[in-house]
């Protein structure tokens, strides 16, 4: 399929020049007409998720996850709720993210594992891994995946996203770096992952909204947001996290400066690859918990 080239002038036609290299307007990409049903995304925040020193509170994080899953499934009993996502006979891979500066966190990993155990899955059929997933027998046999990672600005993809988190399921991740990772969503069609994802968890405890240097990290550009975003739709969750990142950038820098690289892989996951929904008008955002500084 041939796609029409988008130029700077296309943006000038619809807006001022400020957000040029930022998110591509869905209208420019021929987004599908809005459907009647909105995709639901749950943003759960708790002021006590981190203490003043930045230490994470496992108990609070477990509650945040549980509150989110209860709402997402519509089942007040947390074990029953998880049993609608995971079957006892599943082999479950929790795809995490071990980036040195902002990992998924052990607290989130263990909170997820605890509920998978509660759903009846034996401990020896639950794997937690990031870079080793292709070599990990549990992931090779996985019938269900839980996708959990932090959102952060990213030197090449614009943002590190849930969509991007599955890049380690490819033998050569750099093969997906073309056009600043535009087509990351195609990874989700690989047999290792296709149709297996039961829950997406975008960790927003201390998101990175700007990066510097080879490691693309400076603590100065993180903030204590103390949130989790849950959705069955990775694109909708990423699109929501991206809006928060962009709002924080605007608050910090005082202008609408675009991310250093365009995070267009999120919009393209919707408009080009139909993995999910990126248009905020088609996303129902449910906010739970702490609302101060919510930015969205």
């Amino acid at each position, binding site marked *: 399929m041939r796609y029409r080239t988008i130029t*700077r002038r296309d943006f000038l036609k619809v807006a001022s020049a400020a957000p040029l*290299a930022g998110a591509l307007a869905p209208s420019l990409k021929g987004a599908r007409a809005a459907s009647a049903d909105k995709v639901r995304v749950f943003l759960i925040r708790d002021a006590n998720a981190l203490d003043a020193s930045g230490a994470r509170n496992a108990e609070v994080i477990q509650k945040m996850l549980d509150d989110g899953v209860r709402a997402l499934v519509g089942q007040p009993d947390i074990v029953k709720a998880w049993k609608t996502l995971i079957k006892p006979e599943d082999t479950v891979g929790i795809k995490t993210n071990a980036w040195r500066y902002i990992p998924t966190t052990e607290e989130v990993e263990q909170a997820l594992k605890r509920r998978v155990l509660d759903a009846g899955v034996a401990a020896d059929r639950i794997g937690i891994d990031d870079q080793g997933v292709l070599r990990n027998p549990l992931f090779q046999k996985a019938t269900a995946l839980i996708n959990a990672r932090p959102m952060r600005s*990213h*030197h090449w993809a614009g943002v590190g996203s849930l969509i991007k988190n599955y890049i380690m399921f490819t033998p050569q991740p*750099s093969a997906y770096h073309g056009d600043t990772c535009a087509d990351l969503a195609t990874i989700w069609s690989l047999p290792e992952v296709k149709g297996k994802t039961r829950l997406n968890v975008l960790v927003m405890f201390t998101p990175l909204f700007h990066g510097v240097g*080879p490691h693309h990290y*400076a603590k100065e550009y993180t903030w204590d947001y103390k949130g989790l975003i849950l959705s069955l739709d990775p694109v909708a969750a990423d699109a929501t996290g991206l809006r928060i990142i962009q709002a924080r950038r605007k608050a910090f820098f005082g202008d609408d400066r675009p991310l250093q690289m365009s995070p267009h892989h999120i919009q393209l996951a919707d408009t080009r690859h139909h993995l999910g929904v990126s248009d905020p008008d088609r996303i129902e955002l449910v906010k739970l918990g702490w609302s101060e500084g919510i930015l969205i």
Partner: protein
Amino acid sequence: MVQSTGMKMAAVLAAALAWLGGPVLMSQTGNPAARRLASFIPASAGPWLSEADAIFDAATVFDYIDGAGEVYRSYNMKLLVARRFHKDGKPDIVVDAFDMGSSQDAFGVFTHDLDGEDAAIGQGSTYKAGLLSFWKDRYFMSVYAEEETAEMKRLVLELGRTIAAAIPGEGAKPRLLRLLPPGGLEAGRIRYFHNHSVLNYHFFVADADILLLGQTADAVLGEYVDRQGRRSRLLIVEYADPPAAVRAGRSFARTFMPDAPGGTAVKTENGLWTALRVYDRFAAVVFDAATGEEAAARLEAVEALMRGARS
């Protein structure tokens, strides 16, 4: 801060080697280029002791810095030596030393991020948020404190000066920079690069490579400010040969300015002017000039410099 047993052992060994007066060359002993690169970095930074070096090339750089490796690959990086300095209870310092293969690409990758204060180190430097970046000769150096304090800033700058002093030579900037007319040019905002992803990082032109940069073209992007404070940009691309420049000019005109009479200049939707000129193996594009005349005058100036460069 947690210190692993391996980390402690590495630090002890590094200290021993430093005491003996030898550099820490634990994993690059069989690689002369890595050995040379590592020799620019001291074994200790005050009481911070170094761990074992990690060495990466263009194929393995992703193992270290994930997708950010694409930036360095786009500038033809040859080698990276990473050395971490550790002191219990203090933030780590990380030195990433890149051999870019040429001073032009060392300069180019330095221009990828020009934010920050000039630290007057090497042949060009910036410091911000705990990160010192500088270039000298064919090397690009990043010295980074994982948490910024006044003490860490002082240490990072001191370490940077030590590394810069250890690099014996200096290198030339890309010749393409000479084609930027000086009037109104912001000297500290010049970018040099090779591909359209990096162009878009600095100034979004199009999602496709409509200027046919590929990975072999050389490009420079300059920012200009006029007396009224209006900002415009000048992009100059040098192709392998004149036919390649003609093809690129046609591609750009067809996609970006199909409504331009003769495919050379157009008033765009923001009321500013974009203009294109192809000369010999070069293509030059002015973006966001206040008037058509201003755009034409800048391209005339570029062409005059090009003619001078040829003669």
